[in-house]
């Protein structure tokens, strides 16, 4: 045990003496958090929309009011006929036009069915997508509330093929994603680089020729990064709470445990990478391309899974970040308990077992 402690102390010396490592460890998470928080949020606020109301009745006015008072939209244009629509978009005065069909309220009363046409400025596809989602959500919300008072359910058909974002809270979406990204990056990248560095320096030769066992070398390497990653989790949670006003709805203990699980998974990924490469550069490239990009692009962090081609969806399903983001969302944002995330937790556990077995198997007790 004593030699193990010595090993861990040595690792801490390496970390604290290398400014680059320190910067990646402690400054990058904060920068990323702030960056994603302020720049890449999925929130829409005061989006300019136009209304083309062919019906001008009580219901359409109610819906228009609801849109206007939601805080997401400002109605800057009231149109009188279809020909103006294109003009508005061309001038860029609105992002979306909401079109109510003629006799909207009458049709709703008579057939329990009416339709709204949403036309969005798709030159900014992401925003368009969001705006349409938000509008639909608000209209649906109206329908749900009205349905409580009428006996026959009524329907408002919304003509748009955009997807429905059930959370309706884009501002919070980035926290789980950023957490996944930072943990993957620090745990996997730094561990893989630190192991490969020993190979490059030739010190691995001495370590291997000593009585240290492979597992001891691996765990000794991983331990400091596990501790430091955990510190980062705390930092992120504090930042999201105090800077972005995002409270943790569910159990903090459960959330921390799940984070620890994900950290261990990332570390085992890092070790796995290091056993398969011999240069720091390669290790870094693999970590960046193989882990960081998927953590951003293929995890549901920025782009919803459902919109992706099938092949990419499959990749999402073998990407650990995907599961971690679901877990954090459920615990942190929805306040749900272990029962809602046990499947995802099991997947992560399975991945840990897989990568650790693979690493120990591949980690050589000799040089070749």
């Amino acid at each position, binding site marked *: 045990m004593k030699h193990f402690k010595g090993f861990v102390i040595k690792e801490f010396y*390496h970390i604290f003496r290398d400014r680059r490592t320190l910067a990646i460890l402690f400054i990058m998470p904060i920068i990323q958090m702030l960056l994603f928080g302020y720049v890449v949020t999925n929130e829409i606020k005061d989006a300019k929309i136009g209304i083309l109301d062919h019906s001008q009745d009580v219901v359409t006015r109610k819906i228009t009011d609801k849109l206007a008072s939601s805080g997401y939209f400002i109605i800057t244009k009231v149109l009188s006929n279809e020909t103006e629509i294109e003009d508005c978009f061309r001038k860029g005065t609105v992002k979306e036009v909401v079109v109510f069909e003629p006799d909207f309220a009458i049709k709703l009363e008579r057939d329990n069915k009416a339709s709204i046409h949403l036309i969005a400025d798709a030159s900014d596809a992401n925003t368009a997508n969001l705006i349409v989602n938000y509008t639909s959500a608000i209209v649906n919300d109206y329908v749900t509330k009205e349905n409580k008072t009428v006996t026959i359910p009524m329907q408002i058909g919304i003509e748009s093929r955009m997807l429905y974002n059930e959370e309706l809270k884009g501002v919070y979406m980035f926290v789980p994603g950023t957490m996944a990204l930072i943990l993957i990056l620090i745990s996997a990248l730094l561990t893989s680089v630190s192991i490969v560095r020993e190979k490059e320096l*030739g010190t691995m*030769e*001495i370590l291997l020729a000593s009585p240290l066992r492979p597992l001891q070398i691996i765990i000794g390497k991983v331990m400091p990064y596990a501790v430091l990653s955990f510190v980062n989790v705390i930092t992120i949670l504090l930042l999201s709470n105090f800077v972005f006003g995002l409270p943790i709805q569910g159990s903090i203990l459960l959330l921390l445990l799940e984070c620890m699980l994900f950290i261990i998974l990332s570390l085992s990924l890092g070790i796995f990478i290091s056993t398969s490469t011999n240069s720091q550069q390669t290790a870094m490239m693999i970590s960046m391309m193989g882990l960081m990009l998927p953590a951003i692009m293929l995890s549901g962090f920025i782009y919803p899974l459902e919109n992706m081609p099938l092949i990419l969806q499959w990749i999402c399903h073998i990407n650990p970040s995907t599961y971690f983001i679901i877990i954090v969302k459920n615990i942190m944002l929805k306040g749900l308990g272990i029962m809602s995330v046990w499947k995802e937790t099991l997947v992560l556990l399975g991945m840990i077992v897989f990568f650790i077995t693979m690493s120990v198997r591949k980690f050589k007790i000799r040089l070749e």
Partner: protein
Amino acid sequence: MQTVVVDNLSKCYKQAVALKNITFGVDAGEIFGFIGPDGAGKTSLFRILVTLLLPTDGTATVLGYDVVKDYKKIRNKVGYMPGKFSLYQDLTVEENLNFFATIFSTSIEENYHLIKDIYSQIEPFKKRRAGALSGGMKQKLALSCALIHKPEMLFLDEPTTGVDAVSRKEFWEMLKSLKNSGITIIVSTPYMDEASLCDRVALIQNGNILKINKPDVITTTFEKKILAIRSSNMHKLLSDLNSFEACDSAFLFGQTIHYTAKQNNLMMPELQNYLTGLNHLQVEINPIEANIEDCFMSLMNQAS
């Protein structure tokens, strides 16, 4: 008792053969030297003996343990200093030593007496980062680290390469005193002149052992007669000697040229006349004893 027994050992890589059926033994308490250029197979051999590589064929035991089966036991009992300086440059002298002590479950205090003579020379700099040490000091630190767990045997792979003559001399003095404390030392070097500092040497080239014996036995039993020849124009002398019909080999050796003749027939008068005929001035021809380098080159030529 023999501490190392190597029997018909071979090592092949995908493209190259590093060791070809070599056999030798090392006695307890001796300094055994492998003398040969880079690429001779020294590093492969050392790595097999310290259990870092598997042999392709043949067997080897170290301290009675098999290098394949009993690798854990060997790792506890030997000290190894790889050819490349392999310490943590960002750790201080003391931290490095401490680290290597702890991974062998010991401490500096416990075995200080073993490294005292060597370590005391660098102890004034113990707070300095290893990366900032001079070549000679790095080497002393590396040796201290290899010794700190009280190994029964030391494997030193080219410890003096790239090190200046003074540090090299000091290093060999350290090895002498370690030997006196009973440790068996196996060392490799590309410097032929270091052969005489070993108890026994193996001359190694292209994965073959050319010869194993005491260095003075190797030189005294060298069958060829050697002349040391010099003149005022050494470069011309060398090419002239090479074109002399009876010449077997002519090599520059410091300020003289070492010359051997075919069938060991030196024909000194003819040689003298030949050189004067070619207008060489201040010609000096002296018979000398062979040194290890003469032997090595002669064996190299025979092998190829």
